[in-house]
């Protein structure tokens, strides 16, 4: 149902969005490696955001631990919990993906993000996904974030994202 070039395009769109939106500062190094072992990232918390269209729904799941490394990197205002700050980053990342996808699928909507326990990932199969891709994201070599892309569709999906599209600055601010 989902062509290989579509899977590749989704991967590139995600990587572009993650590189431009997940680092707290633009100059921070962001390395993304796709996990080939099929195992879910092990972080304890996960932020879920959904992009829906008439043809498919795409879930972006960003896994994180509420640990010192994450807090040191993301929390500049000590009065704000890490979950709030990271949820905003996840929302921006998904917004950037949404902006890229809307060029190929004109009817798209994006949910507000929600945070769940990492144990929930064991039930990803309940959604009967047609495509799942997992990534390890490392920022400055110190902050480790996991990512899962999950696509469910009832119609064939076939599109090719422009090579540079995912790298463009994108991602309008989604208020929530």
């Amino acid at each position, binding site marked *: 149902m989902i062509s290989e070039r579509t899977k590749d395009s989704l991967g590139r769109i995600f990587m572009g969005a993650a590189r431009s939106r997940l680092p707290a500062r633009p100059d921070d190094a962001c390395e993304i490696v796709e996990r080939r072992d099929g195992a879910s990232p092990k972080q304890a918390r996960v932020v*879920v*955001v*959904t*992009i*829906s*269209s*008439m043809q498919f*729904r795409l*879930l972006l799941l960003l896994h994180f631990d509420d640990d010192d490394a994450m807090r040191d990197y993301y929390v500049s205002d000590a009065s704000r919990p890490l979950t709030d700050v990271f949820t905003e980053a996840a929302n921006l990342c998904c917004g950037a993906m949404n902006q890229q996808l809307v060029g190929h699928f004109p*009817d*798209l*909507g*994006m*949910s*507000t993000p*929600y945070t*769940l*326990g990492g*144990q*929930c*990932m*064991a*039930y*990803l199969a*309940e*959604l009967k996904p047609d495509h799942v891709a997992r990534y390890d994201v490392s920022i400055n070599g110190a902050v480790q974030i996991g990512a899962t892309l999950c696509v469910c569709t009832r119609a064939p999906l076939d599109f090719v994202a422009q090579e540079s599209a995912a790298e463009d600055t994108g991602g309008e601010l989604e208020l929530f």
Partner: protein
Amino acid sequence: MAAQYGMVAAAAVAGVAFIAFVAAVWYARSQRRIATRVQTQIEQQREALALAEARHDDEQRASSGERDALAAEVARLTDELEQQHARFAVVRSELECALVRGGDALQRASRIAEEAARLKRFADTFERWHEQMTSLMAQNQDMHQKNQELASIVSHVLIVSLNASIEAARAGAAGRGFSIVAGEVRALAARSQELSRSYRDSLNRNDFVTAATFQDIQAGGKMMAASLAGVESLASQLHDAFERAAA
């Protein structure tokens, strides 16, 4: 001496006579040249006149041709004007009909825009459903905490039942009955622990499926609202176009 005077006088007379002769010859030649020049000028004037007359005749003929062509063109334009007038009458009649239809279409375009704007309020319904998700998830979270507490109690009961079994064993024959009870309690605690784990898994599954489903509903609502905004915008553009055409 007198002879000398006579010769001088004769020479003078001869000189005057010669000069008079030369003057008469020069005058006669001069008159002939003037006459010749005048004659030439007259001929040139005559030729120029003839040329001008010929040109005038040509121009007159050309002018006559142009006048005829112009008259023909005027006649053709008159015909065309009449035809255009007839066509204009037809077009005006059609335009009047179109304006009547346009008025109807204007109303329809306006109605579509209003309907699209009204339907966008569906998004509020989806948001309401999404708020329900937040409430459901809060309940789930509460159940997670209660289940965790239950698991902690069950775990404690297991330890207590194990201790009871040890104490019963120490008591020997006297503790045999107590040992059976402790074993039953341990078995019940183990079953409770299993049930608690299963309950925790169900809650995790519920969390995930509920969040994913309600997010899909919320995102779908936004998608529909965006699509309806597009329809509303198109209907407004159509309405404006009809209004401009009617003006």
